[in-house]
């Protein structure tokens, strides 16, 4: 087992930089998620680690070995593809056993190891079926079984759950994490589903247009997004972002004609520094850090209730402030009873201010 290091790794397709100088440290045995919107270069990064795509520049290390120019089969990795890629002309036994077969493992041992892997995923009763005779969830497990059967140093997953329905996906999430903890193999997991990445990973890296914009433990990234892009990508619904102007003299921020005092704000000094050049800021506040009231409260914004969505343990209230939707999360068992004009007070300890072009100020 071993960690993975990417050093200024790039991939250009013609003039397009699909991956642009990505530097990452992935620790031995950890579950690492690459998260980002469609086309940001996640798959390309993963395929370079697998050796299916040649790096234009930069290096890849697995353990102490520089594998940048090695063929896939020399890297000792296992990969689960988004479409599973189970061979349609082989039954499940041969499919799962294929990595062992190419390593020249005798048939009896192969059968035993395949059965073990299949058992751990609950598909050992399906071994003589062809992929076409399996449900989507069973195919997905078979693909995972094929990845774990030869005890590779590294697991690579490219959106392995995106073809499952919502219920199966949550279930598969559970068994993937459990399995990874059991075998303790370094895992790189590509997804565009932020909930999946948060739920599974020890560390996540968020990519935007070929670059890693932020990396860290999921909760750290969630609680301190470094750019508005990251802020608007994590969380469901994501962070509310509102334009405002700083008023240094009054030590407050104006958002839609409401003035919120920043007397107690932790990062006032940095805001002052920013405001020397530019008084415009973007205020970011998570839906769970807003207090809502039907009557006027101090230090608040005001708007009209647009929609109320009860979700069980929590509810979402969407409020329109000057045409812009702002979400509020409430942890109540009952459907919240708000209507018409409401007031929203942000928790000033949890507010972030961003530069209009996206960088975190404080």
């Amino acid at each position: 087992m071993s960690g993975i290091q990417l050093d200024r790794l790039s991939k250009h397709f013609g003039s397009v930089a699909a991956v642009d100088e990505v530097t990452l440290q992935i620790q031995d045995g950890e579950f690492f998620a690459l998260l980002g919107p469609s086309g940001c270069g996640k798959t390309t990064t993963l395929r370079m680690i697998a050796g299916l795509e040649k790096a234009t520049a930069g290096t890849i290390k697995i353990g102490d070995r520089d594998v940048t120019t090695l063929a896939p089969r020399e890297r000792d990795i296992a990969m689960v593809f988004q479409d599973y890629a189970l061979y349609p002309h082989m039954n499940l036994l041969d499919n799962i056993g294929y990595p062992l077969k190419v390593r020249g493992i005798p048939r009896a041992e192969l059968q035993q190891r395949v059965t073990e892997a299949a058992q751990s995923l609950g598909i050992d009763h399906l071994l003589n079926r062809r992929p076409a005779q399996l449900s989507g969830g069973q195919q997905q497990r078979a693909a995972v079984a094929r990845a774990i059967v030869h005890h590779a140093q590294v697991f690579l997953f490219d959106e392995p759950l995106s073809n499952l329905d919502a219920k199966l996906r949550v279930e598969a999430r559970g068994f993937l994490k459990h399995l990874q903890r059991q075998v303790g193999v370094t895992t790189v997991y590509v997804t565009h589903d932020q909930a999946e990445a948060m739920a599974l990973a020890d560390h996540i890296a968020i990519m935007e247009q070929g670059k890693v914009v932020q990396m860290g433990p999921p909760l750290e990234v969630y609680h301190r997004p470094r750019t508005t892009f990251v802020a608007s990508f994590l969380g469901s619904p994501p962070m509310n972002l509102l334009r405002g102007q700083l008023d240094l003299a009054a030590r407050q921020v104006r958002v839609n004609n409401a003035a919120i005092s920043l007397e107690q704000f932790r990062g006032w000094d940095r805001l002052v520094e920013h405001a020397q050049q530019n008084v415009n800021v973007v205020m970011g506040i998570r839906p769970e850090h807003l207090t809502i009231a039907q009557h006027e409260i101090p230090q608040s914004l005001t708007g009209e209730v647009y929609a109320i969505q009860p979700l069980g343990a929590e509810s979402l209230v969407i409020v329109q402030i000057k045409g812009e939707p702002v979400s509020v999360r409430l942890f109540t068992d009952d459907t919240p009873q708000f209507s018409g004009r409401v007031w929203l007070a942000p928790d000033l300890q949890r507010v972030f201010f961003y530069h209009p072009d996206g960088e975190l100020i404080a």
Partner: protein
Amino acid sequence: MKRIKHLLGEAAYYIFILVVMAFFGLPLLWLVLTPFNARATLAVEIPQPFTLDNFQQVLNNTFAVRALVQNNMIIAVGAMLGVTLIATLSAYALSRARVPGSSQLTYILILFSSVVTGTAAMVPIFLIIFNLGLIDTYLGVIVVFIGGLLPAAIFIMRDFVEGIPRSYEESALVAGAAPSRVFLDVALPLIRPGMMVIAIWSFVQAWGSFLIPFILLRSPERMPASIAVYSFYTEAGTPNITLVAAYSLLYAIPVVILYLFVNWRYGFRFFGGIKR
């Protein structure tokens, strides 16, 4: 009223189908029935009196029999093997290797396919084969067939290979297989249905051809069946209909058997396994 109109429509539809079926079916029916008829006829009728004499006479014609079971077989099987093998390998390479300009190349290929076997190319083909010293050899005929059929075969195969997701081969590469092994274990089984189509198509093309062997072969003992069928014509050039029909039936049987065999053994279908 509406109902009657609907019924009339149905009737017209079935009558149309019947006419089309008769147009294609009657010649086939004639081919199957006439060889068993003692009387020569161009009408489709139940053999009266029924006889196997025609086959007896055909089988006594050693020239015609050798043409069928030896010459035709060698030429058609040779062309089939050559075309299928080369088309598969080159289509695979064209589809999977990242060669600049490979798609333009394939489009030029279709253009060529219509030229090389066309009548206009007969003189140059004859000269090339003559200069290669391959006149009056099976090899000469087979080479010309391979050259003529290959462009279209590659084009069809490339489309077929293109339709197979690369992730099958990529997952085998990651699983630890060398590229040659990936081709044999994974790619080949997946493109086999396509290969079968190409094999049958090229076999049929070579099996039924007349012009190329007629031009490139000299000796009667190497002539294929399409030429040998003229031995059932009289000196005056009128066909002996019952014998021609019997010989034609024998001539058609291998193609039918080949089709049935491939369909039974491999099936002309693609078994999916990729989740789309």
